[in-house]
């Protein structure tokens, strides 16, 4: 377990990794990766009960995480590498031909820590439900976590899964919504108003936890601990995690263009100047 301070230090390095990976690859999704860097760091190091040295596909005796919004591979890979799932130096192969670090997560290339391909949006909650049911059937009392973009909630399959998990009391599942109000074509309000998420989930028989600032490490830790404490009570738990796309770099914050656009080689140093190299670059 890391202290809040230590996690913040890691998250800052993760943000550097995200920017350096995407600029080197000349492609990728830095915006949502920066926004979720604090949550992903907290999950990998403190929240998830898992063992990077003994990764197994079945995840028996460990917590499982499925990142449904697979496009945020920069933050997924950086936090996994920093946690010890694979060598940090491998981050430099991101999106390159022959890499295990595919543009979107894949199992085909054998990267430890990935159990399911994702990126075709809307599918990760269903997978998480299946894994949660599997854990119940096999008597494993560990938890299943999923992460979804807020724009992803526009996918119909999400609501099939939300309805199922509530109706069938999948209470070993914690789904987190990255609530940054941004998607490719604009704000969620402009593209498709998500409405009252709390009311939506509650009406589907879920327990709702809200984290007001998902870029505040202490709030993330407290909120996820609270979510965990609410499992096993007959209802799935959803965490509405308010984040800011591009968080950590002032000229990227809240700008939806950085969903899928990377910094130029010229702009990268300006961004990195705002993020201290805390643990050594890859």
């Amino acid at each position, binding site marked *: 377990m890391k202290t809040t301070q230590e996690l913040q230090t890691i998250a800052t390095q993760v943000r550097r990794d995200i920017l350096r990976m995407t600029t080197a690859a000349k492609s990728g999704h830095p915006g949502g990766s920066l926004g979720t860097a604090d949550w992903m760091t907290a999950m990998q190091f403190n929240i998830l009960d898992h063992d990077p040295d003994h990764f197994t*596909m*079945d*995840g*028996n005796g460990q917590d*499982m995480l*499925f990142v449904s919004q697979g496009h945020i591979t920069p933050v997924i890979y950086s936090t996994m590498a920093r946690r010890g799932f694979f060598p940090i130096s491998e981050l430099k192969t991101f999106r390159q031909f022959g890499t295990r670090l595919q543009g979107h997560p*894949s*199992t*085909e290339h054998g990267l430890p820590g990935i*159990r*399911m*391909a*994702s*990126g*075709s949006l*809307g*599918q*990760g*909650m*269903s*997978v*998480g*439900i*299946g*894994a*949660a*049911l*599997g*854990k119940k*059937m*096999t008597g*494993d009392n560990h938890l*299943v976590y999923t992460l979804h973009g807020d724009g992803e909630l526009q996918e*119909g*399959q999400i609501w*099939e*899964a939300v*309805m*199922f998990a509530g*109706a069938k009391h999948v209470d070993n599942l914690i789904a987190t919504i990255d609530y940054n109000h941004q998607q490719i074509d604009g704000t969620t309000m402009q593209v498709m108003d998500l409405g009252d998420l709390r009311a939506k989930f509650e009406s589907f028989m879920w327990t709702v936890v809200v984290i007001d600032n998902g870029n505040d490490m202490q709030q993330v830790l407290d909120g996820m601990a609270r979510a965990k404490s609410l499992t096993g009570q007959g209802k799935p738990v959803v965490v509405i995690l308010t984040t800011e796309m591009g968080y950590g770099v002032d000229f990227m914050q809240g700008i939806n263009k950085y969903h899928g656009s990377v910094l130029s080689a010229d702009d990268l140093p300006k961004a990195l100047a705002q993020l201290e190299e805390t643990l050594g670059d890859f």
Partner: protein
Amino acid sequence: MTHYEIKSQKELRSGMGEGLIETGRRNPDVVALSADVKGSVKMDGFAKEFPDRFIQCGIAEANMVGIAAGLSLCGKVPFVGGFAEFVTGRVYDQIRQVLCYSNKNVKICGSHAGISLGEDGATHQTMEDIALMRALPNMTVLVPADFNQAKAATLAAAEHVGPVYLRLGRSKMPCFLPDNEPFTIGKAQLLNEGSDITLFACGHLVWEALQAAEMLEKEGISAEVINIHTIKPLDVDAIVASARKTRAVVTCEEHLFNGGLGDSVAQALALHCPTPMEYVAVDDRFGESGTPDEMLTNYHLRAADIVEKAHKVIKRKA
């Protein structure tokens, strides 16, 4: 020629249902999921015997496929049951991403496949499912020919590690194969040896091909009949060996021309042994309402249609 008797008229989906119960007894990790059609797809027997291993998913096929993928991670062997159209075409991307690309051990049981579904009409009569499923890397595609083979194929699917599509019809069809014959995935089944032409058939049309062979025999034409119950992986060696011998081929399937058994065989022959060939299949159109018999007859999927194509291709022999 080898003569086959109709022992009974049974539904292939029921063969799957019996096979599922049997594999459920053998392997406690086998689980079943259905989307509000457990009776229609004959999973009710399994659900009754193993209530804790049956997951009712409601009318939500996409979610069901994802749940199955998640269950497979935990060592379960999920069988997903639904109407063939709604567990293939409707959820093609889900199958692609979380079953095939992620290579998960999930079995898709598509009941009510093909035009012999009958009265429900074209919305439910998928004739593209073989094309869709065989296009996917890692997928195995099984099209058994009768009730007994559907049961055996279900047992084989459970033993095979990886995603499998099992295509099953709704209607009662002739049951003519032995009831205890093991099913070998990827191994074509020689039903009748012949020398003048080869009839490659799958699913309900295997029986029609056997009838066609008897009709051809009366004309002095010796037809080899091979049941291609596994569309993928295709038994290319068996197909090429037979075509090399007979030099004329007719493929017979309850599917569209595009992408089904015929195209599979054509691809194998084009690459290894170019041979005159004709298709008995449905040509780029949707079905309609009618009885199963009316559908097979009016869409030209009968023994007589196979005979006609056989005459045509024999004329093309060099």
